[in-house]
């Protein structure tokens, strides 16, 4: 029974408008308990306006080895960046 509690990843938002940020994990048997633990462990001091808990096994992530092939497309599309486009000298606010 000792090893029965699931692992949950905790994300905390410090104020509205900010992104939820990963802060660590807790062990809990179900979501409400995970949320309460997350509050006690990661929100003892403000400011916190929102907490997400996610079962660790529900996270499907890239592998470090993916770095090259997986993210490559971003490097080959310079036309997504504004500086790719030339503007005549002296033209402002464009």
């Amino acid at each position, binding site marked *: *029974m*000792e090893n029965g509690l699931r692992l949950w990843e905790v994300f905390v938002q410090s104020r509205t408008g900010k992104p939820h940020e990963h802060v*660590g994990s807790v062990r809990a048997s*179900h979501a409400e*308990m995970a949320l309460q633990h997350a509050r006690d462990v990661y929100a*003892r001091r403000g400011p916190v306006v929102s907490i997400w808990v996610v079962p660790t096994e529900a996270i499907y992530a890239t592998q470090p080895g993916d770095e090259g092939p997986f993210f490559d497309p971003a490097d080959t599309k310079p036309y997504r960046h504004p500086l790719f486009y030339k503007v005549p000298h002296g033209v402002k606010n464009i």
Partner: protein
Amino acid sequence: MGNEAKLLETFQKRINAGEKIEPRDWMPERYRRQLIRMMSQHAHSEIVGMLPEGNWITRAPNLRRKMALLAKVQDEAGHGLYLYSATETLGVDRYQLIQDLLEGRAKYSNIFNYPTLTWADVGVIGWFVDGAAIVNQTMLAKTSYGPYARAMIRICKEEAFHKRQGYEICVTLARGTPEQRRMLQDAINRWWWPTLMMFGPPDDQSPNSAELLRWKVKRKTNDELRQHFINITVPQVLALGMTIPDPELRYDEKTGNWLIGPIDWDEFWRVIRGHGPCNRERLRARRKAHEEGAWVREAVQAYARKRQQRAAQPVAAISQE
């Protein structure tokens, strides 16, 4: 070059470039092992560290002090949990780590094997012990392993309160009656040397240091950290009109360092090997707390099972949720 050697070279290059290592990255098995050892010992220290101070919660001299001490001890529990969480990213199970502690296989900081005899000890612990922890943890906040560094940053932010509430207790005693001043001096005398030992053995006797520095797990040596702590703490002691229990203590104009007499490393090794004043008592208290909490863990499991069963019966579930 073999594959392993190539990976190791890339790993060291990343470290040298100041990159953080994250849980899914390749890392040498020894790096993983060393981190599990350090981080779990650190987690255990936070948990066992609740005991000497928790001992004084019911005897705090007033409500303000009691609230502060409760909050501090609760923080230590939280710090233990941040660290177990971070250690689990290395592929170990926190229940196993806790079992290792309860069965006496794991180490924790030596300092918690000393007793808290008077209220002044609570002040001096916050000031010295948390102060020393801050020096160590400020360095670890820059460690090369990402989850450890992030946990340390959270912890450092909270420790500042621990240190100040401790010093405030000491200031009050230092301005108090002759008896209170004697009590404070006695606590300083008892905690000074064990606190200096918290930074670990001297550099020439620290077997893990070179490797940990090369991997930037640590950024400073034990002796460097110890000297920094001494330099900031001695003036704080003197400011209270108290003395340091070291007849050889002197200020070195050339280096700006406070130089101390020899540390009794025999005592350090004696306590580490289980012969400190409170080693047995601390583990006994941990085991008792763990055993007395068994019914809570069982109840949680029973509740989780019940919910699962209910979820498997859609009609019942709808009426309940």
